[in-house]
């Protein structure tokens, strides 16, 4: 089965449509992961994943240990936050987070005590084979694991053993198709055994029979390393596949299409076609959580770009300010430099470096203005060359879509499947007219969301207002009924004893008031 799959892959080298092959700039591929020292102050935002924000559990002055839960998750789509090192909480207030808006979020400021003591309350589960998947899943949640590929989706949600949609294949995503980034690559080279162990845990948890480790062919060392551990494992259902390098192959739906030839339908999840996709970094974190009992307190980040004197891959504690990380790599003056959080294609420009890194921080780039400028030239009219549609991995028509977004024709944009766009930026990259296509799509999506929000609020308000009208009418009716009753009884009384006539004038007065 896997052999045939491999054969198939050999013949069909480009199963997902479109894609580009930009200059990869993987300058840091040979620099081994270095530990980033502890900064003088950690800034830990209470939300580092997609979903609801957490509620702080600590107060100013509290002493915390590394890995101690400092904010608890709220709702289902949420994972807790842990202290990155041992130290003291010195304040809890709003601070900018890595977000394109530059807006802030409640953050817990921790001053390290230098001892870096770990909270050991979570027992290692070395015998995970004998433990019920639901218990392992709870551990993954408690340890705050969110997808480290950049999306930061709470991982435990995907690790569900669901009878209706049983997972047959686990895909380990080691593609890392963004230029510059090498954090997943270094992790595969240096921690291949742990990653494989993590993969086996995932397979146990979802009951999958086989797994594919997908790596692009520009990372031959990682292919070798993973192949070696996969061969030594008893479980021969794990295969390593090397795919031709193409952006955005690392996109979940694109990778699944590349490997299986099957498309995840719009609005559906990979599990609906019996596939689970996990990033290699996340898989290592799952290993740490289960086998070592460590909650998520650090991640690997590629620090690179032409403005960084000493590019490197670093193991950074979550909550370390970007300025401190850049300083470790010899960059201190940010004049004429653009900072990107994430890769150059999908990353977001940060306004200043005084922002902490979080679970979604795959890379920190610093690019000089001269280098980034050609990408931001004047927008010319579309010449209908069609390059954008050719490279779009989801087969959209970006030039028309951009027109609709620019003109606020939101419904029409939605008809052209605006929401299928994965914002990969391939179209903007190839456009000879320098049209910021993805930017238009982000604008269009935001506006559509806004309109939908307003519509649903209006609907609620309408119901509330109608409800109020009904209530007022009912109150009026009730009052009238009461009054009628009082009047009737009084009238019958006054008929019986006419000498009480004087009293009966009182109720009619009340009536006159209304």
């Amino acid at each position, binding site marked *: 089965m896997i052999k045939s799959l491999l054969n198939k892959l050999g013949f069909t080298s480009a199963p997902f449509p479109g894609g580009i092959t930009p200059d990869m700039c993987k300058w840091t591929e040979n620099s081994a992961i270095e530990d980033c020292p502890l900064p003088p102050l950690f800034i830990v935002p209470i939300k580092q994943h997609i979903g609801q924000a957490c509620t702080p559990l600590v107060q100013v002055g509290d002493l915390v240990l590394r890995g101690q839960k400092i904010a608890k998750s709220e709702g289902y789509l949420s994972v807790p936050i842990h202290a990155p090192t041992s130290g003291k909480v010195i304040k809890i207030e709003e601070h900018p987070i890595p977000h394109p808006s530059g807006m802030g979020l409640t953050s817990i400021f921790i001053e390290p005590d230098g001892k870096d003591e770990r909270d050991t309350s979570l027992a290692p589960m070395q015998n995970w084979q004998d433990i019920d998947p639901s218990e392992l899943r709870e551990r993954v949640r408690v340890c705050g694991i969110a997808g480290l590929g950049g999306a930061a989706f709470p991982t435990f949600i995907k690790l569900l053993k669901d009878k209706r949609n049983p997972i047959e294949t686990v895909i380990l995503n080691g593609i890392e198709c963004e230029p510059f980034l090498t954090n997943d690559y270094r992790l595969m080279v240096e921690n291949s055994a742990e990653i494989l162990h993590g993969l086996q845990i995932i397979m146990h948890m979802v009951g999958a029979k086989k797994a594919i480790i997908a790596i692009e062919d520009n990372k031959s060392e990682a292919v070798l390393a993973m192949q070696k551990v996969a061969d030594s494992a008893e479980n021969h259902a794990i295969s390593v596949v090397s795919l031709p390098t193409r952006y955005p192959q690392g996109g979940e739906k694109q990778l699944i299409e590349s490997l299986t030839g099957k498309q995840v339908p719009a609005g559906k999840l990979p599990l609906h076609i019996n596939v689970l996709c996990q990033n290699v970094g996340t898989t290592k974190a799952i290993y740490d959580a289960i086998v070592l009992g460590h909650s998520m307190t650090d991640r690997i980040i590629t620090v690179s770009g032409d403005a960084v004197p000493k590019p490197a891959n670093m193991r950074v504690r979550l909550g370390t300010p970007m300025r401190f990380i850049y300083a470790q790599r010899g960059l201190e003056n940010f004049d004429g430099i653009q900072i990107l959080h994430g890769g150059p294609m999908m990353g977001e420009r940060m306004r200043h470096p005084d922002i902490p890194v979080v679970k979604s921080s795959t890379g920190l780039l610093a690019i000089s203005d001269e280098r980034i400028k050609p990408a931001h030239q004047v927008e010319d009219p579309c010449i209908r060359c069609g390059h954008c549609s050719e490279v779009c991995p989801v087969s959209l028509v970006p030039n028309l879509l951009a027109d609709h977004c620019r003109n606020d024709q939101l419904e029409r944009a939605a008809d052209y499947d605006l929401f299928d766009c994965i914002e990969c930026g391939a179209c903007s990259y190839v456009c000879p007219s320098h049209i910021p296509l993805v930017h238009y799509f982000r604008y269009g999506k935001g506006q559509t969301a806004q309109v939908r929000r307003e519509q649903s609020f209006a609907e609620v*308000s309408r119901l509330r207002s109608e409800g*109020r009208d009904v209530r007022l009418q009912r109150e009026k009716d009730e009052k009238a009924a009461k009054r009628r009753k009082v009047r009737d009884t009084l009238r019958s009384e006054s008929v019986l004893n006419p000498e009480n006539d004087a009293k009966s004038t009182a109720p009619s007065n009340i009536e006159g008031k209304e």
Partner: protein
Amino acid sequence: MEQLLYATLSLGAFALIAGIILAISSKVFRIEGDPLSDKIDALLPQTQCGQCGYPGCRPYANAVAGGDADVNHCVPGGERTMLSIADLMGVEPKALDEEEAVPVVAFVREDECIGCTLCIKACPVDAIIGAPKQYHTVVSDHCTGCVLCVDPCPVDCIDMIQKPELLEHWSWPLPDTERAQLGAERRESHHD
């Protein structure tokens, strides 16, 4: 002559049949209410503020549907609402009466509230809770920002505050390229 008779008769028969079908379908496919005003009402923001000169969104929708009011009187709805109503009615868009203001919600300074319940009576969407002689509070998730509760308050303890901008509700602005801005300016020009 005979042909003429046949032609008249057969046409007459057709007309009769068509008439019967129309009569039946007008009964069978009857639509309750005024569908046009329903559609307009669905486009209005339901702030129920009365700034359009009508005592709420529904009356304004009825007036527009009946041709008694122009399409440009809803202030909170702003340009987008005006354009969609104009589109629905098939009329030319018109400049707005007033600039759209920033979204606000009411806030009761609780220590000053005397619990008179007058604001509750004024609120068109029942967004204020409280009992006589108790503090009153605005459920800001339900408040439409209509300002109707401010005047009735005898001790002036209700403020309209700017709705806090939520991170989750932030959305990307248009790119700042000239072409993108041109389009935006063109749309703005409806205001003048």
